[in-house]
Structure formats: structure tokens, C-alpha cells
């Protein structure tokens, strides 16, 4: 008796259950692997998304800065001393010659002032002028506006050393650190 019991148990529940478990296990394994893969892709995707947002933000900022940067690039491409001289010549043409006289110009490649504190290449420019106060101020305004790479290190203003000959002309000595590219 009970000749069917084993067959019924085997084919009635054991094998279907094993099959079901196998299917579910396969499904879970597949899903698990896909989830792992998705997790990696998600990380990459999120990172990429953040990168894109960051890039857009930077791009927006750079869009505003680019004209300025290109202008700076042009300025920095020129050799500092010749650029200063050419600007001074241009400035001199617009100013009364007696009130603006360049009396000395010196360029030194040794690092000093701001240049000594940073790794950025720079040169030192020492320029001596004679001129009136307001004209010289105007000249400096024009020069420093045109050449923002000039960082003032020192400015000395002295009156005419001969008190017997009163004059409105003053002696100006400026030292600049000129940033180089």
C-alpha cells in the first residue's frame, strides 16, 4: 500500500518547489546583479549629472568672464616693459608735455615685492617721472587701468629739490611688479 506516496511527494511538491525556488533564485540573482550594475551606473550617472551641472555653472561664470580673460591674455602676451613704454607714449600724447615727463625707466627680472611672494612669474619696473600732481595722477590712472597686471610696490613723491626755484613739478618714483604669463 501507499505505492504512490513517494511519486506524489516527489512530483507533486518537491520538484515543483525546487523548480519554483530555482526560478525565484535565478530571478533574484539576475535582479541582484542588475541592481549591482545599476548601482555602479547610478553612481556614474549621478557623478556625471553633477559634473554636467557643475560644468554648466562654470560655463555660465566663464561666459561672463571670457571677454575679460581674453583681454588679459592679450595684455599678458606682450612683454611688460615695452607695453608700459608704449602705453606711456600714448598717454604722453594726450597730456601737456611739461606736466608729464618720464625721466627714468628700469626693468629688473629679479623677483621682489609681490613677485617674491608668489610662484607666478613677474618682473620689476622702476619708473621715474617729473610732473604735476593731477597730471601724473591722471597718467597713472590711465596706465594702471590699461595694464592691470601692474601692481604698485612703491610710490614716492618728492618736491623739486631746489627750493630756490619754486615749481609745481614734483618727482615721482614708482616701482611696479608686472605679472608675466
Amino acid at each position, binding site marked *: 500500500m501507499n505505492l504512490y506516496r513517494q511519486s506524489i511527494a516527489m512530483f507533486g511538491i518537491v520538484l515543483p518547489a525546487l523548480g519554483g525556488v530555482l526560478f525565484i533564485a535565478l*530571478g533574484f540573482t539576475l535582479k541582484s546583479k542588475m541592481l549591482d550594475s545599476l548601482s555602479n551606473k547610478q553612481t556614474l550617472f549621478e557623478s556625471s549629472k553633477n559634473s554636467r551641472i557643475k560644468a554648466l555653472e562654470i560655463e555660465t561664470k566663464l561666459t561672463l568672464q571670457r571677454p575679460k580673460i581674453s583681454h588679459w591674455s592679450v595684455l599678458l602676451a606682450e612683454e611688460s616693459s615695452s607695453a608700459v613704454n608704449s602705453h606711456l607714449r600714448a598717454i604722453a600724447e594726450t597730456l601737456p608735455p611739461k606736466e608729464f615727463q618720464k625721466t627714468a625707466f628700469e626693468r629688473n627680472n629679479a623677483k621682489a615685492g609681490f613677485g617674491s*611672494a608668489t610662484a607666478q612669474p613677474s618682473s620689476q619696473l622702476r619708473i621715474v617721472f617729473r610732473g604735476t600732481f593731477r597730471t601724473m595722477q591722471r597718467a597713472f590712472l590711465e596706465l594702471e587701468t590699461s595694464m592691470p597686471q601692474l601692481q604698485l610696490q612703491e610710490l614716492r613723491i618728492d618736491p623739486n629739490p631746489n627750493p630756490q626755484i619754486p615749481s609745481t613739478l614734483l618727482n615721482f618714483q614708482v616701482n611696479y611688479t608686472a605679472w608675466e604669463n
Partner: protein
Amino acid sequence: MVTFQHPASLNAFERYQQASWMLLHSTRATNPAWYQAALDLDVQLHIRVDGLCVSSFFYERCKEAWTIGPAITEADLRDTPKMETCAAEVLKQVRTFKASSLGVILHLADEFTTAELKPTFDNPAALLDLRETAVRKPTNILDDSSIPPEQNSWRVLPYPAQGSGVVGTTITITRKYAPFLTAFRNAGESSNFPIITHALSAPLVAIMGLAQSAQFAPGKSSVAILQYPWLSVLAFFNEHADLLLIRTLQHRHLRQAPNLRQALTTTYASLELIDPDLFILPLSLDLDPGLHRYLSDTFPLSRVAIVTYPTPEVVPDWCPELVIAATPPPKDDLAPSLTFSTFRSENWALQDFLPAATEVVEVYPTRAEMLLLRGLKLARMTLYTLTVLMLAWVVFGIVDIFCSDAWTFDPNQANVIKGRLRNLTHEHQKSEHWDNLLADRSKAWTSMELLSRLFPEHCGVLVRNFAHTVRPESAPGQTKIGFMKEWRITGLARDEAVDRLNTLNTQEGIAALFGEIARLTANPAFNPAVRTRSIAINVRTQENSGFKPLPLSETFDTDESTYPFNFDLTITQRFEAADPLALNVNKSP
């Protein structure tokens, strides 16, 4: 009709398929009648064969109602084609009862012989084993090994009375009616209607019924004489109404056994019975009515009584076995002896003499197996549903993964975007770097504006020297460094300028001036409100030794002797490394 194979001849899967087919196409799993005894079913057909006639009656158990059964002839019992027709007719008739099953109980009253057990079996405790062996391997227990087992069926009957000499005997019935019952079972199988058969020995049932019909006198032995057309059965009871012996006497075409008196006399002697009561049970039509008088005359000292069993109106009183077998006595009806109680409770008198062959029974799954099969079907459905749901969940999850932006994202794009971001970052850093380096932190024209705002024209001050220096601070390892700006002015002052110098020589005074310069020149380096920078001023005033007091109209601005005071003014502005104008240390990226 589908022919099933014995499961032993099938492999495991075929066995399962066969069982599943039965589950699907039969009512074996849902109708428990397939596995019940015929006498337990609601509708029963009782057929009694006594050699003279065949009687049949339906019994509806729930209603306890007897009705006349179909007309069955001796030919129906013996001829195969007629058996099938008869079974079909019965089945048709049974359906009118709206029955879900039928028990066919065949009462065999046309034959009854006893065969002695081997003398070695004398242990009453082994009766149950003997009972099983009589069914499976009768030759092992029979004293007479010449009787062919394939043509007969044996069942053990115990003699519960003490002192009977043997533990019991066996009742022998031929298998001549087995095909008839098989035809009924087959008809039930083919029509998916449970027909359970049971072949009873009518004399045994009648003996069991003596408990209710015979008046056993206490302390008096007795003999029951069961009169059938072809035979008489003698059942000897001791004074406790326990069975001592059963004998059968063939009538040999006479109306009663020719050797009844001798048989009784010799058995009295062997069992040492003294004038036992004699109970005559007339169990057929057309029996010798003179038996009572014959016995009264032959055994004048014995009480002779004719015993009848109360039967329903439909059932004749000469065939009480049907009623005795179908209706157990009330539970409060105490049996007069151990014999009658065990005959009923242990079914000794209700043994099936013609059961289906074991090989045939084994073809079908047992009730437990059918229930298991059915239960597992439900379990499988649940399992499949769960599996499908789980797989659906997995598939939906996978589809969800496939549909996600991250899954469809091309990893090469990440490198492109990364490269673009790197370039933009580089460009931005470069921009920031140059923005820092080119910031308006130190301009000559703004310092000159500071000087002109410190001492406007005709304010009573003559400036001798102006010196402005810028020095970066040393901060090794920092990415940004602060710096210090210093303005040093020396000159001469008149009385009216001293107040101005004093005003400037305060934190508020110089901060206000720097704030004004920042506003006018738009140069952030002069903004005093930034917390990361500080301003300090120091003014030192002393008398001018060359001062010559003159009337105001005679003085002019460049004449130093007209100024009573010398002064020395130093302004120091410090920018910390955290200041927005602090200088980048590193080179352009």
C-alpha cells in the same frame, strides 16, 4: 474505460501521472465513499443467495428504510454478460436515490463449510495474525492442504468459549460469486460512481444476530440450528452463551440434514453438553416445518424454540441476516456473551469473503494518497502563484531598471563630461587666478587720491614727502598671503591744520577717509568694512624750529617758515591671508 497499470510496473513519473489522472477524472479525492466499507455507505443493496432464490433489498441508511431491490436471478450472478447488465440496471436504479455511492452486500446462504486450523495454532492471542494469514496465505494455517486456494476463500472464526479445545476454525466460501461483485465494482469504476462490495457469510451473520433474537438461559448450554435450503449450520454455545463449535450439515437434496440427530448427539458427547436448549432458525422459504416436533421428540429434555429475528415489513423474517448486518443493535443493548460482543465489535461475523484482489486495490491510490495529491495540487497552485508573483516582481524590477536613466546612460559620456568639466575647471581656476592677481589691490593713482583727500589745497598743510610701500607677508605653506600697505607723509602744518590732523589721527577719522576713497575710486582695497583688514594711523606733530611769525597777508603756501609745526603721519593698512584681496601664492594653473 481506462486501464490502469499496477504502480509496481510503472516508473515514478508514470505512477504520478496515473494518480494525477485519477485525481482529475475520478471522484476518489472528493468522495470518501471510495474508501469506506459497503456497510458504512448510505445506500446499500443487500442480495441474499440461499440456493432456492435470490432476494435483494435496498437499504437507505440515513432513513433506515428498506425497499425491494431489483429482481436478480441466479443467472445474473453467474453469467458474465448478465452480470454487467444487472450492474448497469442497479446503477441506474440507484441514481434515482440521488445517492453518491452504493454498497453491494452479498449474503451467501447457499454454502457454508468449515476447515480446521492446523493443530499447532492453539494460541488465542495469535487470532489476529491468523485472521490476516487466512486472507493472504490460507494454506499456511489450514490443516487440509488439498483445497485449492484460488477457488475458495477462508476466514478465521474464533471460538471464544473456554474449553472448546481449539481456538477457532475457518469458514470456507467458494469464489463463484467473485465475478459478480467484480462486475459491480467495474461498473462503478467506469461510471465514476463508488460501488463497494462486501460478501458476507449469511450463517455467521445469523449467529451474530442470536444475541438479539435467542433467549439464552443462564447456566444452560444451547445449540442454534440454522436451517437453510441446502444446509444446516449448528452452532454450539456453552452455558455462558459463548461459542464452542460450529458444524455444518449438507441436506444432500433433502429438506433437512439426514444426520442431524447423530450429529447433535455425538457433538453433545464430545463437548459434554447435557440437554442443551435448541434454537431453530428457519432461514428460507419452503423448509421442513416438522423440525421442531422432531427435535422435541428426539430430545425431550431440551427446550426447543423457534427463533425469529424482528425484521422490517419489507424484509421477510426468513432472511434476517440483511437487517442484522445493516443495523447494529442499540449501544445500550448488552450482548449476552463475549462471543456476540466480539463478533460485532471485531467484525468476525462481518468478514468480507470476496474482496477485490490486492493487486487490483493497489492500482488505486489510497485515500491518504488521494488527499495528499489533492492537497499538493492546492499547494502547487499556491506555489505557482507565489512564483509567478515573485517573478513578476523581479521582472517589473528589471524593467524598472531598464527604464531608468542611469541604465541607459552611456559611460563614455561620463568621460566626455568629466573631460569637459576638467577643462572648464582649469579655465575657471586660471580665470580666478588671474582675477586674483590683477585685482585692484595697489594703485598709484588711488594713493595719490588719498593724499589729495588727506590734505586738500589751502588746508594749512605743506607736504614735504610722500612715500607709499606695499610689502607681502611671509606665510610659508599657505595658498594665499596677506600684505601690508604703508603710507608715510611728512610735512608742515599751520594752526588751522592741527585740528584736521587730530581728527585723522583716530580710527574713526581714518576709516571714514578710507571709506570715502573707496567710494570715489571704486577701489575695494580702501574699503574699511572688510573684517579681514585693519587700518592704523599715527600722527606726530612738533614745533617748526624755523617758524617765523608773519602777518597772514605776507605769507605764501610754499614758505616753510610760515608753518609753526612739523608733522609725520604714518598710515598702515594690513590685509590678512583670508582677505578677498589676499594674493595667490601658486602659479597660474
